[in-house]
Every structure is written in structure tokens, then in C-alpha cells.
């Protein structure tokens, strides 16, 4: 009986917590070409360039912050596919927000994106 009550209590608290939780904050950054960054550039590409690069299999990635403190994220769709083509559509935006699960795999920053949206 005590166990059942404890389970009920835990569930109630969890439910209440979920109701009062803050909206998921997007990670804010911009869309860049990894090749350009590796080559010493800023990574900035426009939508058409980004889409062309993505079509050819070049990595279009998400950059948070600027300069030396900038962090590069590889963005994946929830189905496990690389989201480079989707990111490319946002290359003209000054600011892009991504909501999703962030993790580090073998030193690489990964986002499993639920939502990608303009933040201009």
C-alpha cells in the first residue's frame, strides 16, 4: 500500500512539474559552412550557396557564438539523418534557433533537432 502511495506521489509531482516547466529554450546561432571555417573563413554562406554545398555532401553546420568561443554543432533530424539540407534553408537568417537534444559523441557536438526556426 505504501509503495502504491509513493508511486502515486511521484507521478503527481512529475505531472505537476511538467505542467509548470519553462518553454524549451532554443539554442541560438547561425548556419555556416564547415569547409569554409576549416579553410580559415567565417563560414558565412547564403541560402543558395549552402543548398548547393549540402547537395554535394559538404557539411552545413550550426555555429553558436563568435570567434574563438564559437562552438560548432552537427545537427541531425530525429530520424537519425543529417540535417545539413534543412539547415541550408536558414543560411540567410541572421539568427536561427534550434530546440532539441544536445549531446557529445566522441568529442563532437551533436543536436538532435526537434525544431529549427528563424529568430530574426
Amino acid at each position, binding site marked *: 500500500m505504501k509503495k502504491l502511495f509513493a508511486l502515486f506521489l511521484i507521478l503527481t509531482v512529475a505531472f505537476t512539474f511538467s505542467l509548470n516547466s*519553462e*518553454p*524549451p*529554450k*532554443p539554442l541560438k546561432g547561425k548556419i555556416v559552412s564547415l569547409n569554409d571555417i576549416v579553410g580559415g573563413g567565417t563560414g558565412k554562406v547564403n*541560402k543558395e550557396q549552402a543548398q548547393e554545398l549540402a547537395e554535394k555532401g559538404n557539411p552545413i553546420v550550426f555555429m553558436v557564438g563568435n570567434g574563438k568561443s564559437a562552438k560548432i554543432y552537427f545537427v541531425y533530424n530525429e530520424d537519425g539523418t543529417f540535417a545539413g539540407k534543412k539547415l541550408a*534553408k*536558414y543560411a*540567410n*537568417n541572421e539568427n536561427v*534557433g534550434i*530546440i532539441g537534444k544536445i549531446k557529445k559523441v566522441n568529442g563532437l557536438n551533436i543536436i538532435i533537432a526537434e*525544431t529549427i*526556426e*528563424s*529568430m*530574426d
Partner: protein
Amino acid sequence: MKLIKFLSILSLTLIIILNFNACDETTSTDTNPVIESISPTEGLPGDKVKIYGSDFGEYNQTTSKVYFNNVLAQIATEGKQILWEDDEITAIVPQGATTGDVVVEVDGKKSNGIKFTIPSVDPAKQLMATSIDDKTVKIKWTPSDEESSSNFIGYWLFVYPTNSQPGDYLEIQKGSTNYTIGGLTEGTVYNFDLYAVKNYSGKTLLSQKVTIQWSPATRFITNINDDAIKLYESASTFGSGLKLYDETGGAPKGLKVSSGNEWDLGLYTEGSVIEFGSAKNILQKYSSYTGTTKKVEIASQYIEANSLDEVFDSQALSAKSFSERTFDLAQIQTNKNIVFIVRTNPPSYNYAKVMVLNKGGFLQGNPNNRYIEVIVSYQKVPGVPYAF
């Protein structure tokens, strides 16, 4: 003997006087012409009609006239001979004449009238138009009442820019109530003239035209990022505003409050309120925004529709009653989408129709990142009040 001679002279004088009087009667110009009959009594413009009667006199180009229901007719000729005699005239039914009396006029004196019937076709009614995309317009109409007649052929549609003349026509089958016209140019205003057509004694008979002016407009179902066009709720960190057309991106653009100066439309949510409307009115509710706002007006009436293609208009959008306003979507009880008519960029204005999708409710998505999704039809050419 003298008496006989006197009586003879008197009789002769009387006979001469009487004869003169009789001659005066037959040549008098005081008598009005009289029509006894016409043949045929029914026909089309261009047909010849014989008019029988009396006192038509000799033909005079300026004073001898025939009218068909007050429309002046031409007199038929045979070679160089005008077919006008004192008791018979051959006239040609004039263009534009309608059923009514045939009247002969001589020296300003009018005859009696005899009815001449010019068959007509009941026209289509309630012609309306909508823009499908930047090259296509769809029109619809209520059919002619004569569609059930075996002589009824169908419809002829003339499409031409308002600053030019009608050219070739499109034949539309009997039973049709709409027609889609492609190959048009956005920003050009076209006349769409529709005639009902029937066969009359082997000839083609047209109704009075029904007409509407319209122009194609671009329809957007995605924004500059090729994604659905969304306005997020106030609690979201994503944009609650919308620029109807972003020149750089070539499509609508979602914007955050910080870019409020570019907004055309916005969304504000609080509690159960889902307020959607003009940029100025919505941005006033966001205390964080203190910048300038665009003047964007919305028509007072919105339209419920399942699809954009259902929304037709019978007049230019500029005829609507516009002002800066908002609508609480939560108060609109419908399971259909809602279409708003919007205009921005005064004074010449770009016109648009914005359809807010209803997918079991107007707000979609996860809590705190919920959004309304819209489809936009936008007339990119200013001063052309036709969209959608």
C-alpha cells in the same frame, strides 16, 4: 339656252374644284404613315424585315426612318435601289435592338407600332473570380436559366487586359460553372467577359455579357526558409510577427518582436486569447517593443473556407472596409479555416489574403511553442487590388 350654258359652266367648275380637292387628299403630308403588317415578326440583328402599309411616301435620306424598339435601322438595298416604296419598306434589324415595336417615321410623323421579337439568351449570373497563382485566375458563375434548352450551346469567355480590346474567345461547355485561365501576368488587370450562347435558326445567339476584372497573385504556402508560415505564441522565443512579402527571400518572413518595425501582421496570446491582426495593434501589447510600426489594414469581414480555392470575389478588394484591427481567433467558432483580407504599404497598397489554418483549433504545436499556420496570397504589384 343661256341657262343651260350657265349650268354647264357651273357643273364643270364644280367638277374641277372637286377633283382638285380629291387630289389634295391623296398627296397630303398631314397624314401619318400606317404599318399594316411586318414579315417576319421575329429575327436577329442583320436580318431583313418587310414592312407593309401606306403613306410611306418617297424615300428621303434625312426624313425617312425605321426604328426597331427605338433603335434606328438601315434600309435594305437591291443594287443601287433603296427598298422603300409608298406601301412597302425593307429594313435591316439593327445591332443592339431588342424586342419591341417597329415604327416608320416620315417627315417627323410616326406610324403605329407593330411588335418585332428579337430572341435573347438568359446570361450567366454572379460571376466571381479568384487568383490561383501568379499566372492563373479561376472564375465561377451561376448558370444561365436556359441551360436546359436543347438550343443552348454553352459559354464564350473573352479574357483581355483592361487597356486593350477583346480578341479570341474560349468556348466553355454547357453545364460548366467554373473555368481556370492560365498564362496570365501578375499585376495586369484582366477583363473576363462571359456570354451564354445558344443556337437560333442555325445562327449563334449571344446573351448580354457578364463581366469581372481580376488579376493573378502569388500564393505562398511556405516562408523564406521553405517551411510552413508560422506565427508563434507570445510565450515562445520564436517570432510572433509576419512580413507578408520579403523582397530578399521572395516569400513571407517570420519575425520576432525585436524586428517589429518590419511586421505586417502579428499574434498575441494570453490565457485563452489568441489575438491576430495588424502589426500596430499587436505590438502595442508587447511592452518590450517601443519602435515604429507599419500601417497595415484588415477588412472588417473575414471568410470561413476549407480551401483557398473556395474564396471568390465579385469586386475589387479595395471596396472592402479596411482599418487597423485585430481578431480574437478563440472567439471564432468554426471548424473551417479563416481568411482575412489585408493591405499594406500605403498609399498605393499591396493587397493580400491571409488564411489561418484550423487543424482542430487554430493553435498547433507543443505548449509554449505553439503557433498559428497561415497561407498567404499576395499581390506583389502595388495598386492592384486583386489577390488570392
